[in-house]
């Protein structure tokens, strides 16, 4: 089954995402900080990574940059979960090398379709 890594510091969002994806049959790994997320990504090499942007210490941009430095992780589809709804931030995220972004608040369908379209590439 496809492995998904969720990096999100908000516990409610994190748990909801996990539940929605597990119901669809995905195997889930999760981290509540950027640093733990990078460790888990390197350890398990998931099929796709969902990552929040605004996190203390290591933010989403930092996580993406670190994962791009490792050949084990630099090809994994990377989706930003962002609370920033401005175009510039979205453009910025894509230019950094993210494959997609979901602007909060998103619903279950948006989450699943974004993941599926990345995995089917």
């Amino acid at each position, binding site marked *: 089954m496809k492995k998904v890594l969720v990096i999100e510091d*908000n516990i*409610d*969002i994190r748990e*909801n*995402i996990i*539940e*929605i994806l597990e*119901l669809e049959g995905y195997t889930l790994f999760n981290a509540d900080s950027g640093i733990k997320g990078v460790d888990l990504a390197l350890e398990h090499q998931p099929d796709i990574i969902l990552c929040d942007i*605004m996190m203390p210490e290591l933010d989403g941009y930092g996580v993406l940059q670190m994962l791009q430095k490792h050949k084990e992780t630099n090809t994994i589809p990377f989706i930003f*979960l962002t*609370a*920033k*709804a*401005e*175009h510039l931030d979205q453009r910025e995220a894509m230019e950094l090398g993210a494959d997609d972004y979901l602007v*909060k*608040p*998103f*619903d*279950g*369908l948006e*989450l699943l379709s974004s993941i599926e379209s990345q995995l089917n590439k």
Partner: protein
Amino acid sequence: MKNADLLYSIIENAIDGIIAIDEWGKIESINPSGCEIFGYLPQEVIGQNITKLMPLPNKGGNEEFLNNYKRADIAKLIGIGREVEGLQKDGTVFPFRLGLSEIKNSDRKIYTGFIHDLTKEKAAELKVKEYTGDLELQVKERTKSLITTVKALKEAKEEVSTMLKKETELGLLKSRFISIASHEFRTPLTSIQLSASLIEQHAAPFEIVPIVKHVAKIQNSVGNLTNILNDFLSLEKLELGKEVPTFGEFNLVKLSEQIIEEMQMMTKPLQHIIYQHTGSSSLVKLDQNLLKCCIINLITNAIKYSGENTFIDFNTEIQADFCRITIKDNGIGIPESDQKHLFEAFFRAHNTGTIPGTGLGLNIVARYIDLMQGSVNFESHVNQGTIFIIRFQQQHEESTSHRG
């Protein structure tokens, strides 16, 4: 006696009055100028005491002066110009400068007084004094009023700066609030939205109508709240002047089709968006994100303000020199009295009733289109519908040369 003649002539023609008196003050001689100054004929004064030519308060003084002089032989008084007062025949007291010299003539002394009338000078001096006083008074008054003005200005400046400070603080507070609202509100909204999705999924097998209904309501409300946050964020960015359009060439037809695909999911039952494009080209040079926001905003309004089972006409047209986008609905329309306010921030037409909205959407649309140097107009009739027309002047040199 040529010398004596000359001397006599000099004395007779001198402009200053010249009076000679003896030790006791008796006038021995007076020249014509002296007579003229005091207003006497020579015979009226010669042989008289000099006090005849002095006003009362001075009489004593001068006599005393002479006495003093006689007694004490105060050499320094001789030759020094003194300003004293004289008495004319008609009683007029006038100022003059007296130059006194002593002539020792064998056994007796004669005093000669040179009288230089100061009436004119004094009058001029007085005038200057008056004028100076007047000027000083004016300057004082002006200074006073200046000080008052400066004080008032200072106070006004302080007031303005206090107000400015307050306004800046308020602006900062507003920015902070909007930042919190748009970023922090999104986190709980996301868990609400995802929980709603989960409830929907968990409840699906049981087909419980109220659950389905309420989940839809939650999702709908989250959507409304998100739209409000987005409007606030857009407005804030516009207010701060941070919204700078980036022009780039893109395919308007492709964008339109993409928008319709997204919007078709939001339509009411049997509500259809009909899209049509006119013109051989489909390329425009505008800010794609801003234009997309505008079109989505106008189509959202068309959906919101028209009923089920209606058509929404969405047309784009690209010609050699312009690009035109129209969105037409058969909805509730805009009352004529409200039409002139339609693009104002927070304004909502009076017939919108309970349909949710911030009154910011069209304000943002107008400002985005303005940023792209376009124009937006509308025609509307209550209960018949509204058409919005966006227009941009376009130069197609680049795109035509590319295709050519």
